[in-house]
């Protein structure tokens, strides 16, 4: 396809532009900031502006020495606090992802089985919350979950409880917030996948002796794996670095990287350590992404081998 387009010279110019732009974008807004962060993570903190040591010491005659330290990374490994934070972040993100999957799969499946008209309506319902600011929606949960919030007041009024429940400023509220906020990111790729599923395959499995649950585990689930992976990554990656939800809904014991980063930057003013945390976080996120890329490439290769029949 690309080779064919290259024939026309004018076209080639445009194509180059089109290819260069995203790279330029990534270079400017992803790679450059990352390099800066990475540079800072190799410096020592300093009470100055900026609050870290320079990479290159400029003496009177040209450069004097390059100063690099791995102290910040070592610190991350030595101080158990960061290990605990990373683990608890991963755990929180992983559990939230699982909850989103368990909740999102039936919803996506249900929507995919509706008539096209109802499907669009239901999808609109899934997307609708995006029209309201994310921050606002998380704030709204405070009003709902508060000790004297809507839910507690309602339950008290019903007489089901006589003491307000501790619904907010704990892990429960964080899970609730994350699942609520990221559920659409699970549903949409799953829906896109399940909607394409050939219903003849279900009939074929049933015809060959599979009960409904067997049809699901033998046919539907394995064939929706790409949707599951895409949905899980779309939830897991933003959830692990989530800052707003634990900050607004979490308790003092809710440990998450996003919060630790904030504390290092703005309370401790230890930019180098904060940068090191960022770099490690990025590595944690890049690894599953690479795995996904590989899986995707494999399914693509598989689809290609099918000779475009699909």
């Amino acid at each position: 396809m690309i080779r064919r387009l290259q024939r026309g010279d004018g076209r080639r110019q445009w194509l180059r532009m089109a290819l260069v732009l995203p790279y330029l974008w990534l270079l400017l807004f992803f790679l450059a900031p990352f390099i800066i962060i990475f540079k800072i993570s190799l410096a020592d903190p300093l009470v100055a502006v900026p609050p870290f040591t320079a990479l290159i010491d400029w003496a009177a005659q040209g450069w004097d020495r390059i100063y690099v330290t791995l102290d910040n990374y070592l610190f991350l490994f030595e101080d158990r606090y960061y290990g605990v934070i990373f683990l608890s972040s991963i755990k929180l993100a992983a559990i939230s992802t699982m909850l989103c999957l368990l909740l999102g799969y039936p919803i996506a499946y249900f929507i995919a089985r509706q008539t096209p008209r109802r499907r669009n309506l239901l999808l609109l319902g899934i997307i609708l919350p995006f029209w309201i600011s994310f921050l606002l929606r998380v704030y709204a949960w405070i009003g709902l979950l508060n000790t004297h919030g809507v839910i507690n007041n309602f339950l008290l009024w019903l007489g089901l409880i006589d003491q307000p429940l501790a619904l907010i400023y704990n892990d429960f509220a964080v899970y609730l917030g994350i699942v609520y906020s990221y559920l659409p990111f699970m549903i949409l790729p799953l829906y896109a996948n399940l909607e394409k599923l050939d219903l003849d395959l279900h009939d074929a499995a049933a015809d060959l002796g599979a009960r409904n649950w067997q049809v699901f585990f033998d046919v539907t689930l394995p064939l929706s794996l790409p949707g599951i992976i895409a949905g899980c990554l779309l939830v897991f990656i933003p959830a692990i670095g989530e800052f707003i939800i634990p900050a607004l809904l979490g308790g003092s014991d809710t440990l998450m990287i996003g919060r630790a980063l904030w504390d290092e930057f703005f309370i401790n003013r230890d930019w180098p350590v904060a940068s090191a945390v960022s770099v490690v976080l990025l590595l944690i996120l890049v690894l599953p992404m690479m795995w996904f890329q590989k899986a995707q490439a494999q399914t693509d290769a598989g689809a290609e081998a099918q000779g475009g029949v699909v």
Partner: protein
Amino acid sequence: MKKHDKSLMTATAQASNQGAVHPEPWLNPDARPMVEIRGLTKRYGDTVAVNRADLKIYKGELFSILGASGSGKSTLLRLLAGFEAPSEGSILIDGVDMTAVPPYERPVNIMFQSYALFPHMTVEQNVAYGLKKERVPGAQIRQRVGDILETVKMGHLAKRKPGTLSGGESQRVALARALVKQPKLLLLDEPLAALDKKLREHTQFELMNLQDELGITFVVVTHDQEEAMILSTRIAVMNHGRFEQIGTPSEIYEYPKNRFIADFIGKANLLQAEVTAVKNGIVTAFSEELGAELDACAVGQQVPAMGSRVWIAVRPEKIFISKESPAEQGSGGGRTVFRGTVEGLGYFGNLSIYRVELASGKILQVSAQNRVRTARKTVEWDDQVFISWDIRSTILLEV
């Protein structure tokens, strides 16, 4: 080609001498049907997809359900497979009522039009799937899967994924997957529709051989009458959720029950006429379209009353075309003759199709085998010709 290719008359004669193994079980009143459909009705809201259908299919038949899209044939297939529940009526397979039996427990397997092979399983796994669900022991599964893949000549591709197979290969796998369970009834949904012409012809005969070899009852659902004619022992023509006619391919072609069948199966020149005389089973009717009287034979049917309106159908290949006048003119002596002008001509190599305009302006279609090898046409455009047919070739249809 057809195992039960007999005309109506000989078939009726045979019905009287019943043997132990009847070649045409549908003529044997004592034969137990493999499939019995009784008053089957399926409604979707206000639309009736299948309307009080009755049908008996016998063991070893290759039975076709032929109909245009929307005729209800696909619904009937889904009812047989158990994907849909009937609104009324019942389906019996081998004497057992299937109404409450879910698809996974029916002795019925289906070959889907799309083949519906599981894309994430190899050919072997696809074929083994049904046996695994039946909890057949592993060694037996391997044996049976291997055998059936050999039968359909797909053994060498057992480890491949369906995505890498051609249409013909996919079809063989789909067939093997359905047959490996040794169903009492195999349903085939438009089995040849997705194949190209050369492969179709080949597959047609393979299907027939396979059916003969395995003795499984096949029910084919198709919109392609050629496919149905070649494959089937019997055909049920479906229209608006009802069976218009059930019979052998030749019965349906040569003795259509009504105008729909005559028009739907093959080509037919249809003439409307009013009965003016009835004598010895020969009906004489006046056709306004032709401005002339026509004779027609009433075969195994009620003789229409004087003055009633009828349709007379003549198949194009039953009409003889010549430039010289046949022995007699007009209607009589068992032959009907008309004069006309060749208004259109289609040369197909093996046969030619002529459109002949009669004096009344009515155009009849005539087809003739090109028996003599010649580059010149014996009948040309604008030629004055005689067309004639034996009155026994006419089909008398009530309005």
